[in-house]
């Protein structure tokens, strides 16, 4: 071997390092490959540098907030214990067994708006806006904003223009996750007043594997527009499985025993203002609806 052994540098690093005068001095630190896998680290806006701080460096300590937090969590814990004495989920057992309708979200005060998170494509650099406030008489929630489908100019994103409102994950004391148990119901009932735009309802259920994290069960919500309220009933058997926005080939019905969040998305490629008023969101048990699942479960392209 007459040639000396040259250390192998990955091609991408060579390209980026051409402009860097300190190249020979820089140690072989990890450059663009994140420590955590792509699906775990959440969304990174294209163009922003990746943060690779180890988890212990990400916590911030604050004493007064800590004290507030402790009192809040212990109160919640005490509430939980007393709820168990009344019955499952804080209701007497006869009510829990026989109830046919349950109102999950009702917008009757400013506190109800705290349960919801808004997001739009502003996070990826687009220009859509979304806002949430209470409607007339503090009786309804009013979701409004503007949709712009011009994609952000970062070289990576091709499509843009979406706005969404998602409920926050319900939490028990000490920020533990609590799930909605809708196993005794089979229909989602919404009372809304839209402006004619087609929305999409997304339900996120608790999953076991990490790559199922972005699994959503969706269905369409067509609003009629006009001054009259619209009652929308969507059976849970109609929700189809999507992952990161793409409809999956292998479909299965939504399991209702551990539902995390529900959300509404608008992405109908029509630029302009939008509005949606929601009176309440409830679940009900429709005895006339006997369908298990609306889509085929068998394999469409079976390997022979």
């Amino acid at each position: 071997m007459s040639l000396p052994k040259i250390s192998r540098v990955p091609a991408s690093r060579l390209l980026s390092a051409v402009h860097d005068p300190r190249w020979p001095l820089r140690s072989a630190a990890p450059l663009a490959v994140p420590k955590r896998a792509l699906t775990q680290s959440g969304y990174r806006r294209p163009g922003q540098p990746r943060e690779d701080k180890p988890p212990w460096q990400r916590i911030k300590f604050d004493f007064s907030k800590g004290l507030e937090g402790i009192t809040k969590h212990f109160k919640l814990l005490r509430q939980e214990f007393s709820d168990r004495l009344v019955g499952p989920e804080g209701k007497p057992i006869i009510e829990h067994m026989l109830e046919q309708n349950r109102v999950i979200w009702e917008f009757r005060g400013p506190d109800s708006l705290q349960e919801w998170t808004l997001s739009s494509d502003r996070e990826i650099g687009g220009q859509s806006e979304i806002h949430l406030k209470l409607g007339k008489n503090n009786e309804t929630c009013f979701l409004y904003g503007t949709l712009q489908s011009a994609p952000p100019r970062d070289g990576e994103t091709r499509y843009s223009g979406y706005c969404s409102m998602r409920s926050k994950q319900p939490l028990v004391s000490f920020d533990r996750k609590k799930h909605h148990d809708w196993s005794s119901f089979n229909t989602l009932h919404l009372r809304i007043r839209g402006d004619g735009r087609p929305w999409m309802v997304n339900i996120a259920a608790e999953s076991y594997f990490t790559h199922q994290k972005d699994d959503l069960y969706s269905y369409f919500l067509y609003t009629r527009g006009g001054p009259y309220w619209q009652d929308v009933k969507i059976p849970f058997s109609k929700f189809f499985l999507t992952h990161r926005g793409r409809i999956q080939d292998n479909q299965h019905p939504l399991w209702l025993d551990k539902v995390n969040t529900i959300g509404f998305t608008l992405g109908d490629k029509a630029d302009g203002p939008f509005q949606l008023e929601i009176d309440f969101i409830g679940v009900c048990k429709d005895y006339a609806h006997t369908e298990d699942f609306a889509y085929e479960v068998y394999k469409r392209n079976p390997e022979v």
Partner: protein
Amino acid sequence: MKSTRCLLQLVLSGRTAARINELLLSPATSRLSVLHNQQQQALRHFRCSPASAKSRPVPARSVDEDKTNSTKSLATQEDLFEQVPEESKTKATFNQVIDVFTKRDIRRRGHVEFIYAALKKMSEFGVEKDLSVYNKLLDVFPKEVFVPRNYIQRMFNHYPRQQECGVQILEQMESYGIMPNVETKVLLVQIFGEKSHPPLPEDPVDLARLSLTRIANDLDSKITVYQLPCTDITESGEEIQLPHIVGIQSPSQMELLAKHNPNKPVFVEGPFPLWLRKTCVHYYLLRADPTPPEEKEEEVYDPERCFDYPLQLDLDLDRDLGDDESFDVDDLDEGPVFAMCMTSQGDQVTLNQWISGLQQNNPILGKVPTLFRLDAGIQELQAAAQPEPGHSHPPHPETQREDPQSDEDPEAVEEEESRRSHGMKQ
């Protein structure tokens, strides 16, 4: 045999059993049909309709005119292809068969079966991988008949058999790995329509009609066009464009308006957005505040109104927890909506015209004060509108329609203010 005209004559003339069966099968009265006999003459019988002829097998025709058949049994479309002798099964003869079919009948009856038969026979003729042949086959469909013209047709899978047939052609193309070209696309568009969704009407009056029927809650609502778009010449000689005014009101809304208390005002609110696919139109409402609970009258049922069953029952029955189908939420009472309208120019003058048009059917509007609550920003408002008898003050600029009423104009009529300050908001 020369053309015969009536059923009896046909029987007498000794036609074959197949023909008689066909004629007898077609259920009676007042329909027309065309049958071909061997001598290429069209027999018109006034008992059968063209529509039923599609599902009936057409008796086979020979490609070469000298061949004659005795049609003793039901012949299928495939016979057309089978009659071509083995040696001459080429693309040219295939095209010839298609031509024979298309020229035979201007209405192309039985084309669905013909196309299915052709698809099956393609491999015998060796043309299954030829795109031009597929295009020619698509050409067999009559154009523009199957294009859905409104949303109901589109919704209910207009002409499903033809659509399935078209899909079958495309599927066979796909299985042989053939890429369609522009001609295929043009043909499909001509046959089945641009999209499966018909476009929105361009004319603003039609668009207004469509959207008003969509947002009206009542199927009995009637649409009235109060004004069509036209140009008018004012006294000073300049031309102004008058906008269209289309209104909608249902009989139950008329009743509600008739029962409205004349001391309380009605509001003209707007413009509210309505999206129809990608277009946004705006509509205006005529509504009133909800009656406060103390002033609500109970509707007394006249027992003589209906003798079939009692309208009111005095039973004290309660539903069990497991049978209760209503949600435990308070009912929102937002006040009745009396009418809706759409116009391109939402200023007070135009809306006044709408109100006066409504007044013809609802005389109470002459006595009730009408307030205008129009949003600024979307439409241009007149700077100062002339106060008219019975009508109130100039429009109140608002940034959003949902602003609470208490923020509004101090210039309102006094009776308004006192009533509005108590959360009787809409």
